[in-house]
């Protein structure tokens, strides 16, 4: 197995404003995201040979994308992998190019979450079956259960864990003030975060990301074509995807202190990219901060922090814009909200710009290798996608 490393290049990206976009439908958002990507790549819609369209609940079948952009009679597959859908859509487009069946492919993710009572509907089968009205709530309680166990296992006092969560919340809100396309643009304080109303104990309002509408798109091609289009294209270094086998809720051995799906995906990705010391070799990361506990545990799952020690790195400021491994430089899900299938591509958009040196006031000094991580679902049934992008040599 050779893997994907250096076989596919990103030449164009687009991203809409994220937020409560009451006046736009999913097609409007895809037009906005795609045309920004076309302009960035110097390409036209007719140049797209194949496309992948990520949507959890904002339209079925490739026709939604084809009709929005008038892409006439090219193959388009719809991708759905819950919160990992955006990054997985990108992954599929990259594989299309790497396989040689097409030279230029479009990956686009879109979601109109705010059309669904402010969240997302659960009108899906497994693991939400229709034999009872039992688990009919949003997944927040699942992440809260990890937070409870994390607190118990490591002997944390509630107040102390909340302070660590608050430091993550404050960091992401700070970064979001510098992201014009984010949903939220205001600083918060540690005290505000700690004292906010509880959403799902022990997670409070500021420990949770927002819910928003949005779309983001990427145009991928071969490195050879990329060179002909622009200098500052980026190369795909790794693509990983794992899907939970339901084991966490079957086996008492599962500790609720890590995401096995993320640990496995990270191992795949690092192997493919040839990374042996992620803390050293990765310059910036966009991780799935749906809740503060997710970001905290993800530091450990991705090998940025030793197991059980992520809080020490949080306290040291390691993941701030000034730290040695800035995480969620654009404000993350915390500030962008989480339109499921759009998030992964929005995160790739940020890494792409950091690597290009075009991230504006939040630009990092050194950004040669960046990582994107998404995880979503419920315990046992998480889906995790990781993408690693790097500058060409």
């Amino acid at each position: 197995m050779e893997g994907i490393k250096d076989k596919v290049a990103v030449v164009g990206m687009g991203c809409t404003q994220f937020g409560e976009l009451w006046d736009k439908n999913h097609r409007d958002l895809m037009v906005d995201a795609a045309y920004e990507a076309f302009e960035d790549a110097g390409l036209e819609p007719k140049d797209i040979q194949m496309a992948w369209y990520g949507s959890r609940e904002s339209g079925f079948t490739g026709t939604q994308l084809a009709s929005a952009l008038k892409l006439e009679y090219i193959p388009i597959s719809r991708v759905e992998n819950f919160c990992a859908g955006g990054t997985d859509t990108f992954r599929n487009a990259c594989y299309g190019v790497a396989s040689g069946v097409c030279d230029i492919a479009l990956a686009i993710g879109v979601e109109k979450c705010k059309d669904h009572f402010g969240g997302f509907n659960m009108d899906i089968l497994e693991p939400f079956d229709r034999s009872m009205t039992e688990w009919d709530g949003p997944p927040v309680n699942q992440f809260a259960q990890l937070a409870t166990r994390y607190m118990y296992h490591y002997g944390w006092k509630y107040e102390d864990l909340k302070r660590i969560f608050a430091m993550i919340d404050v960091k992401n809100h700070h970064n979001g003030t510098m992201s014009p396309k984010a949903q939220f643009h205001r600083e918060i304080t540690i005290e505000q975060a700690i004292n906010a109303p509880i959403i799902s104990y022990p997670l409070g309002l500021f420990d949770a990301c927002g819910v928003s509408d949005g779309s983001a798109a990427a145009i991928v091609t071969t490195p050879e074509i990329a060179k002909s289009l622009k200098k500052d294209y980026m190369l795909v270094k790794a693509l990983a995807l794992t899907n939970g086998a339901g084991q966490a809720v079957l086996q008492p051995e599962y500790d609720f202190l890590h995401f096995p799906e993320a640990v496995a995906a990270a191992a795949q990705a690092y192997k493919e990219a040839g990374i042996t010391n992620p803390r050293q070799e990765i310059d910036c990361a966009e991780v799935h901060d749906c809740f503060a506990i997710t970001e905290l545990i993800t530091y450990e799952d991705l090998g940025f922090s030793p197991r059980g020690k992520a809080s020490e790195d949080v306290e040291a400021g390691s993941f701030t814009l000034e730290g040695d491994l800035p995480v969620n430089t654009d404000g993350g899900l915390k500030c962008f909200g989480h339109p499921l299938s759009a998030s992964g591509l929005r995160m790739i958009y940020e890494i792409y710009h950091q690597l290009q040196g075009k991230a504006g006031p939040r630009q990092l000094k050194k950004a040669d290798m960046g990582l994107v991580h998404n995880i979503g679902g419920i315990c046992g049934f998480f889906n995790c996608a990781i993408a690693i992008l790097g500058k060409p040599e």
Partner: protein
Amino acid sequence: MVGITAYGAYVPLFRLSREAIAEGAKGEKSICNFDEDSITMAAAAAIDCLNGIDRDTVDGLYFASTTHPYKEKLGATTIAMAADLKTDILTTDFSHSLRAGTSALKSALDAVKAGSAKKVLVTAADCRLAFPRSAFEPNFGDGAGALLIGDTDVAASVEASYSVYNEIMDVWRHENDSFVRTWEDRFTLAHGYLAGVKEAVSGLMKKFGYSPGDFSKVVLYSPDGRRHTELAKSLGFDPKTQVQDPLFAVMGNTGTASPLMLLVAALEEAKAGDRILLASYGDGSDAFVLQVTEQIEKIRGRRGMKKHLASRKAVTDYKDYLAWRGILPAEPRKETVVFLSAPAIWRERDANLRLHGVKCKACGTVQFPPQRVCTHCHTKDQFEPYRLSDKRARVFTFAMDRITSPVLELPIVTTTIDFDGGGRMQCFLTDRDPEQIECGLPVEMTFRKLPMKGGIQSYFWKSMPIRT
């Protein structure tokens, strides 16, 4: 000898102070939680009754209630599933009268006597609604009783029975009514309750040659806290020494379940040789004479009435009670589950209602819900059913959610629990005190109703702190 071979009861954890309903009213009444109904309470009483008894030996389950969730759909079958009984047994519902509990008892005695069944489990439960602030409202309590009827190892044999009916509009509820109606009590008591029970009890004593002094305990259904005393006196019993306390101060009138629950309370105090008289009321009366045997000492290990009554939590806000009963409308949930599927409900019935997990025949690993491929050794389709409803567990972790919730219970507690003997499950925690939940909390399983959807009342199991 045919009679009671085991007993069980269920009183919900929650008690509403009568003061919260009517100023100056004394005592408290038992109220079921928002996720309980007559079926879940009857299931709990049935399981209490079956403690230590091989469930495969039960070959009938009767359910009596005037508060059946369905007008057309048996409740006994749902209870039989929750109690994990085999399917080739008698099941039927008795309804439409507060006498239905003793009518079910009479039918079970007759079935065993006739030889058509060896062991019939009789359950009765009620959670009747009174018009808010009416005179009935402080009186009505919620609860369930269960009696296992058989002809071996009889703890209280039924020596005689006698029934009368009287056609009267004293207490009723039309198909379109939610709340129980009544006429002026001076009329209804005189010509309904007092006349009906007196006719049955005196008829019984006359027919079988008993006199009031022959009974160590008289168990009389009572519509309120004092009428049974008046009745007992008029029948020649001594209210001080002979009459079972109708438990009005601590529970209230539990309707169809009341005679069975009061009988359980009497049996808990009874000793071999005691003779008990039981009489119900509802469009007439069923009266029974029971003779307690030495076997009574062998069936003590139950929660029954005493332990259930002792395990209580006060509800002080009348509005909580009104909301739980659906009298105060709750804001409709933002719909997430679009519909319930009858085929899915049917297909998952053993997992959802019996709480059957599976145990891998190859490696012995217990798993819930049932799997096709073993979580541990990956062997395919080599499983045996494994009942989890009677296993205790510990909370591994939990969340206390304020947004997932039906607003009837904030926060709603979700748990991941690990069963003693193996197996893990995610479920809600009910009858909980948010202050006392922690990792490692010991829990037991309880059968509860879920939100209604499309006219379907679905049920599943929740964890709850062990009731002590």
